């Protein structure tokens, strides 16, 4: 009777088990660095697209702390607070992103998110690889 043996399966299974137990500090480090990368890219793209008159909108970009959720961990990047004219920075960002009558759209957020996605994947991959190496995998 034919028999199929696959070498290395036990190591792979151990690796997946280790990943499922990714410690909070590793998840936090990944998400924090990813959020920083996203913020940098949104700022850069916003500047390039002219979303800068006083600088208040782009300066209002902030990352929340990492929170544990039922699905894992999350961090949010947001335009926080109000500008000196009393308008919510997120409203100003929205109008820039989607435009309005007589004001063309400047989709700086969606463009930045698309552009930074490979960088965020690299961040996660590098930190997971470091973690698995520490586990001897």
């Amino acid at each position, binding site marked *: 009777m034919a028999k199929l043996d696959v070498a290395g399966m036990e190591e792979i299974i151990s690796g997946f088990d280790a990943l499922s137990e990714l410690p909070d500090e590793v998840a936090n480090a990944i998400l924090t660095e990813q959020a920083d990368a996203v913020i940098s890219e949104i700022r850069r793209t916003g500047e390039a697209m002219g979303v800068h008159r006083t600088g208040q909108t782009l300066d209002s970009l902030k990352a929340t702390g990492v929170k544990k959720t039922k699905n894992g961990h999350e961090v949010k990047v947001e335009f926080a607070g109000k500008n000196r004219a009393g308008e919510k920075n997120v409203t100003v960002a929205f109008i820039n992103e*989607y*435009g309005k009558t*007589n004001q*063309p759209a400047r*989709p700086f957020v*969606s*463009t930045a998110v698309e552009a930074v996605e490979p960088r965020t994947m690299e961040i996660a991959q590098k930190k997971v690889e470091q973690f698995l190496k520490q586990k001897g995998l």
Partner: protein
Amino acid sequence: MIDTIIRNALLPLVSEVAPNRYTGDSLEYCTWTYSEIPDDFADDDPNHIRYLVTVNWCLPHGQNPEKKHQIANALKNAGLTYPTITNASDDDGQNYAFQSEWAGGVFDGEA
């Protein structure tokens, strides 16, 4: 090429269209902008460009936005991805932002 594709997709539905900024007098018009993201690199050169397109359909308050999904389908039928539609209307009028993607060869962007 991408400008022509978008223009040809929109014109049957909206008679006034212009890239980047509309400077005409009509209260109903479409305008669009796009970003170009290089992809599929080989020897440090991209083989493709991803176009992240935003089409804005502006019309006055009180006019029925019944063409919204026809515009979305027109963009899809022209080869773009089916768009995300965001209602960005304000006191000045209705404004629907259609965000979509198209991929082309490196020299497909044009005036």
